[in-house]
């Protein structure tokens, strides 16, 4: 065992603090709201979401943005709880993509 990829307090090599802020994109606001709504309905706990992020692939954890990690962990937990399946999500996304128009 070794320290998890999330367990980064005190690790050397960190650079200066980038204080640039960004306004949340629509999909980020949606991810935030879906996460909170699932919590409010008692469907999942924050602890489960944290654990899902700890279990994700380490390079994905570093490369994904904050809300992308949230979405990945929402998906992991919903599938784990048999609320949704990956196949359903893939299928629904494919429907949307054909509407949105791929380049």
């Amino acid at each position: 065992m070794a320290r998890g990829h999330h367990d980064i307090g005190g690790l050397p090599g960190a650079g200066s603090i980038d204080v640039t802020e960004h306004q949340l994109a629509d999909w980020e606001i949606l991810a935030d709201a879906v996460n909170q709504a699932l919590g409010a309905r008692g469907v999942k706990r924050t602890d489960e979401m944290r654990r899902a992020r700890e279990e994700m692939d380490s390079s994905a954890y570093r490369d994904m943005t904050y809300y992308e990690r949230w979405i990945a962990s929402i998906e992991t937990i919903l599938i784990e709880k048999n609320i949704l399946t990956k196949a359903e999500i893939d299928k629904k996304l494919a429907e949307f993509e054909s509407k949105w128009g791929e380049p």
Partner: protein
Amino acid sequence: MADSVTDADGHEHPKHELSHFAKRIYAIRELLVEKGVISEKDIQCQIEYQEARTPANGAKLVARAWTDPAFKARFIADPKAACAEMGIDATAINEFVVLENSEKVRHMVVCTLCSCYPRPILGRPPDWYKSFNYRQRSVADPRGVMREFGLELPDDVEVRVHDSTADIRYIVLPLRPAGTENWRAADLEKLVTRDSMIGVMDALPEIPQ
């Protein structure tokens, strides 16, 4: 549902340009609503709840604490009740602790393991608070982080860094700036920045232009 989204800079983009996970949340949302797991109203309520939460809430609490010693005592002793007095709904926080700065003590708050933050009062944390650099450095080099935010402290001031690893949510009560003794609360609020309630800097010494 619109086929474009507004991105971080306010530009419209077609949805097919979104990253993999960004696209998936739309599919996940649709399925959850179809299956009755959550409703569109739930989602809308959460968006509005979050929008109503901003650092201005914290600034009001701090300004009142500066001007009203009895309120300050109540704020430190039972922060959730003090919030309720001021019409700020902090009920979503499990446990809430106020860290009072003084001439000789400064506090700084981080969540090294993820990004826990007193969202029900202050709203969403800034990107930098959630960044790997802040999470890595703040526990080991708080003075270096403060220096980047313009705060240089002598060695006889104690720096106390809190790593909020559990359900306790921390907010820093910054030191009242010198020379503000007769100021109204509404003006004092303008000195209380979000970053001063995280603890990486003190409150502003004067109202920004």
